[in-house]
């Protein structure tokens, strides 16, 4: 860092300490270190400063100062994001919402809760349980990730085919603009007049404003839930079976698929009784009233058998249900045991293309000598290919990244998209021009300008500048030219 920057840093820290508890203005390298990346740790950058304000007024003041001084601001929740969206900016301030961890109000009759952005996703459901309610979206990271991060990424979870993503489960947010102004978007009703700014904010990756409060919807906890596990000896049959369930008019609470690598890793890890020899495994959870679950479970079991399952097993009690899910839920750490490192991708495809995409993906991986394990939100077509690699082998991460990029491009080719729930961040900037035209990207940039004309909110994330797109495109067209 240059001397000039050092003096900016000291001055800025000094100014923040005038209104934020000095302990919560972090400027020394050792304490800054834990903030250098989010869940995608291959991308890191040391921030200039980290601040942990405790009131919305402090957030406003931080933003006002940074706006005036044109200092980049990167919001941060729990840092579990998987696209380097919360990766710091070297000349910027990380604005952590960690101190905003209170549930402000639960309204059991209206079925909503008003919470601060740093509240953990799972904490909302835990608190609402006393009223027989819960918060729908359940990302696998729900023990740790924050609702503010969920809003910024429009996070989903295992149950989003039936219960929706974050955008379907929030009623309003309070946001602080880049200029430091506090605004209320949405309210307690189901809609408000004018453009749907709430939808625009959801999934905007901290590029449009800082979320300082969220009103979430709460749902009644289903009376019953049971899960049917089915093994298949080929992926196509399993994919067709997913279509079969939906064609029968059933929208399962969750419908997940795993491939051979994932099944074996998960079974070794969780001992859930998964059929180790299966090529594909489906977990289909049906929830609702006791009667409905009974009716639908019978249909699902019959369908799976008819549609070529080689084994079918249904949970009979909560313990068994938890066990069957345990393998799926621990799939990531389980894969972590069969490979020194793994890289999690997040494309979405039309479900009908599943077998084609998996086959092509295997072929691509084989060509570069890597393995891919797949866990898949099969109900809504969201793939999570886990590319197995070893970061200690020189060049292997680069190879992995390149394969990852190719997989996302494949998703776009078959009519899907480059990210279903993890966001673009820094990681997928390169694939944005694959999914969008220059005109579309220009429109995105114009939206950004409408909120943040100086471009200081989370710069370098989410939407590439057109100049960068041209570079990417010319590299794609002429790979030799870069000498890589």
């Amino acid at each position: 860092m240059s001397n000039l920057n050092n003096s900016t840093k000291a001055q800025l820290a000094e100014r923040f300490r005038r209104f934020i508890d000095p302990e919560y203005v972090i400027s020394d390298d050792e304490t800054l270190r834990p903030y250098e990346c989010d869940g995608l740790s291959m991308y890191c950058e040391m921030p200039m400063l980290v601040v942990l304000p405790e009131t919305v007024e402090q957030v406003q003041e931080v933003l006002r100062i940074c706006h005036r001084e044109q200092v980049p601001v990167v919001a941060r929740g729990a840092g579990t994001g998987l696209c380097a969206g919360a990766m710091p900016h070297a000349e910027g301030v990380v604005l952590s919402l960690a101190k905003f961890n209170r549930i402000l109000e639960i309204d059991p009759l209206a079925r909503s809760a008003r919470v601060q952005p740093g509240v953990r996703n799972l904490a909302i459901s835990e608190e609402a349980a006393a009223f027989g309610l819960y918060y729908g979206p359940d990302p696998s990271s729900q023990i740790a990730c924050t609702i503010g991060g969920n809003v910024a990424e429009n996070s989903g979870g295992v149950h989003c085919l039936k219960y929706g993503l974050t955008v379907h489960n929030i009623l309003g947010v309070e946001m602080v603009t880049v200029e430091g102004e506090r605004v209320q978007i949405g309210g307690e009703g189901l809609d408000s007049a004018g453009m749907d700014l709430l939808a625009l904010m959801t999934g905007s990756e901290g590029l449009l404003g800082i979320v300082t409060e969220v009103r979430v919807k709460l749902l009644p906890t289903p009376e019953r839930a049971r899960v049917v596990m089915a093994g298949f000896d080929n992926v196509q049959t399993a994919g067709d079976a997913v279509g079969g369930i939906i064609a029968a008019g059933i929208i399962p609470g969750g419908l997940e698929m795993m491939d051979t690598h994932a099944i074996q890793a998960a079974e070794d890890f969780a001992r859930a009784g998964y059929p180790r020899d299966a090529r594909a495994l489906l977990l289909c959870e049906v929830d609702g009233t006791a009667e409905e679950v009974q009716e639908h479970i019978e249909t699902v079991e019959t369908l799976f058998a008819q549609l070529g399952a080689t084994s079918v097993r249904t949970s009979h009690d909560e313990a068994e249900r938890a066990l069957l899910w345990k393998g799926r839920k621990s799939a990531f750490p389980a894969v972590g045991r069969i490979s020194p490192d793994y890289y999690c991708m997040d494309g979405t495809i039309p479900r009908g293309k599943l077998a084609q995409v998996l086959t092509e993906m295997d072929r691509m991986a084989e060509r570069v000598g890597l393995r891919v394990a797949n866990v898949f939100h099969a109900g809504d077509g969201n793939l999570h290919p886990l590319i197995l690699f070893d970061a200690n082998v020189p060049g292997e991460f680069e190879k992995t990244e390149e394969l990852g990029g190719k997989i996302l491009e494949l998703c776009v080719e078959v009519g899907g998209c480059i990210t279903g729930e993890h966001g673009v961040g820094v990681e997928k900037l390169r694939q944005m021009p694959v999914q969008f035209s220059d005109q579309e990207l220009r429109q995105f940039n114009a939206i950004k300008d409408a909120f943040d004309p100086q471009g200081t909110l989370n710069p370098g994330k989410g939407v590439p500048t057109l100049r960068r797109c041209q570079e990417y495109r010319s590299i794609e067209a002429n790979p030799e030219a870069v000498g890589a």
Partner: protein
Amino acid sequence: MSDISQQLREQILQARAGATKLDIRGGASKRFMGREPQGEALEVGRHRGIVSYEPVELVLTARAGTPLEEIVAALDEQGQMLSFEPPCFGGNATLGGTLACNQSGPGRPWGGSVRDQVLGIRLINGLGEELRFGGQVMKNVAGYDVSRLQAGAMGTLGLITEVSLKVLPKPGETLTLVTETSMAEAVRLMNERAGQPKPLSAACWHDGRLYLRLSGARSAVDATVRQWGGELLENDVAFWRELRDQRLGFFDGDAPLWRFSLRSSAEPLPLEGDWLIDWGGAQRWYRGDADRARLDALAAEAGGQVSLFRGGDRSGEVMPAQAPALRLIQQRLKRAFDPDGLFNPGRLYSWM
């Protein structure tokens, strides 16, 4: 069935060159909504037809001018439906207008709104650029959610030319329970019951009667009917359709129709007049002349807002006032999409 998007784009480019303003019209079923329309007609009604429909993928894509009835009929053949039950307003409502005006029917609190079910759109912006956002898959978080941003924008950001939607299977059974009760008691009951894990799919109160619709697996619906009690409503499909399309007697006549969007559990508002409560309490219709400032204050207290949905003076503002910062953001967004202010000038707000 035709694709006239090039023609529409031409007209937009010409309007831009000639500084003409454009008044976007689909089926002209919602001319009464918003402020008085102005400008040269941009007719999107002939840009129609279902482009693709994959029942197993739960995705349907249609051109913006496609009548809802055509879509509903195609879904019906496959045992599927639009879960947001959009109003057809006399049969002419189109898909594009439904999204632009964010119109959803009685099932909205449970089946989601049109904005909830939208997966992607094609849009021509004020520069005449044809853009595609979102997609035909269930989940897509690449780029900003421009598709859902359109809901409620009333065409002010551009011409929506195509919409992809998530569709859902129809429930196995639907029954409606009716009980006689007061408005206050109905609001309480609607909310309490919505808090139970039962297959509730619509809840409405009018004229001393509470209507609760149950939809789902037959066994679940039957069990809930036994548990909750009440009279079964005959011909309930017609009742919900008439409510959806605003053809119940309540909606007759010229008196201004106010729409409150509120916290579902809000106590009845202290306003004399005729009320109809829908969406389990979250959407309330009120007939009568009233002092706007008073209505605004009451709506705010109940966690929401009020708009003049139909009738009354449509040269003034009909939508609730926007906070200054939100107004500024929306004006800037308008410029970002439509720098020359071609589309539907003044339809949403006088300042847009």
